[in-house]
């Protein structure tokens, strides 16, 4: 009789052989690694690049661009959820877990995104979200937004060059999916 094959610890950069890494360490390493890419011009998972050309700070690595897009999308949806909960206070108990999830996802990405230009809620102020007039319509519109966010996160996970960052993004997408299933059931 054999055990169910146990998943190994998450692979994080140079410490891939370590076991017992927690989700926190994965997130921390992922965010730190992402932050380290900012302005360096390095490409994730490309340690053998012989390109010595100095990069301009404005040219972000592809994964930083992915993180920037993910953060912007998550914030936009989080503001939509908060706006809906504010307009329909009776939905707060239903929507608070969604807000908390989005906040956790934002926190895992925030350090990876330089100056957060173009991210809603950062500098220029958030784009207003139009909450529909009825509760059902408002929740329906939110579900569409969350579904779109899920699809976006999955798409970004596919684009990410770092495997661990892809795993993080796909996990976020799956979390949105889990919450959607709860909201719609």
């Amino acid at each position: 009789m054999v055990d169910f094959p146990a998943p190994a610890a998450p692979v994080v950069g140079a410490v891939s052989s370590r076991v017992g890494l927690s989700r926190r360490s994965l997130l921390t390493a992922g965010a730190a690694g992402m932050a380290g890419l900012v302005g360096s011009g390095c490409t994730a998972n490309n340690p053998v690049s012989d390109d010595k050309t100095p990069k301009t700070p404005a040219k972000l690595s592809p994964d930083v661009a992915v993180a920037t897009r993910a953060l912007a999308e998550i914030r936009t949806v989080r503001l939509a959820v908060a706006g809906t909960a504010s307009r329909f206070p009776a939905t707060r108990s239903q929507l608070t877990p969604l807000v908390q999830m989005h906040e956790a996802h934002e926190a895992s990405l925030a350090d990876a995104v330089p100056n957060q230009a173009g991210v809603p809620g950062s500098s220029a102020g958030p784009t207003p979200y139009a909450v529909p007039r009825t509760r059902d319509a408002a929740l329906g519109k939110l579900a569409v937004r969350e579904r779109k966010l899920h699809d976006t996160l999955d798409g970004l996970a596919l684009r990410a060059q770092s495997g661990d960052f892809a795993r993080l993004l796909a996990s976020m997408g799956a979390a949105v999916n889990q919450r959607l299933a709860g909201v719609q059931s």
Partner: protein
Amino acid sequence: MTPVQALQKALAAEHAAVHLYGLLGAQLSKSRQPPLFAKLSRTYEAHRGARDQLTVLVAAKGSDPVAAKVDYEVPGPTSTATQIETVARTIEQRITRTYGELIANTAGGDRRWAITALDASALREVAFGVAPSHFPGLG
């Protein structure tokens, strides 16, 4: 871990899931517990489909797909419906983490497949009573 190794690991996990869900289904009465039996049946079919697809993905890379073991250790008692659901939750959480690894160690079409598989297993976790997580498949 190479992409093929990650695929083989996921395949091994799906072999285990197919075996274990077959066992869990055999422990239940279809007439006395129809909703849970139906859920286990759907889940069994899902894992069998995933196992078959992984077999194709591994073979397409020129490797021999890892074979199933003769037996697997059941992760918990299965005497009651509640215990069976607990075991199902454990299986799904392990599968979700395995697909997280697969995503991290693949790219392109294989990663796309793994992302879809992670989504599906994360939903099955919830269906069996796992509380939604901020980061399914990471912890």
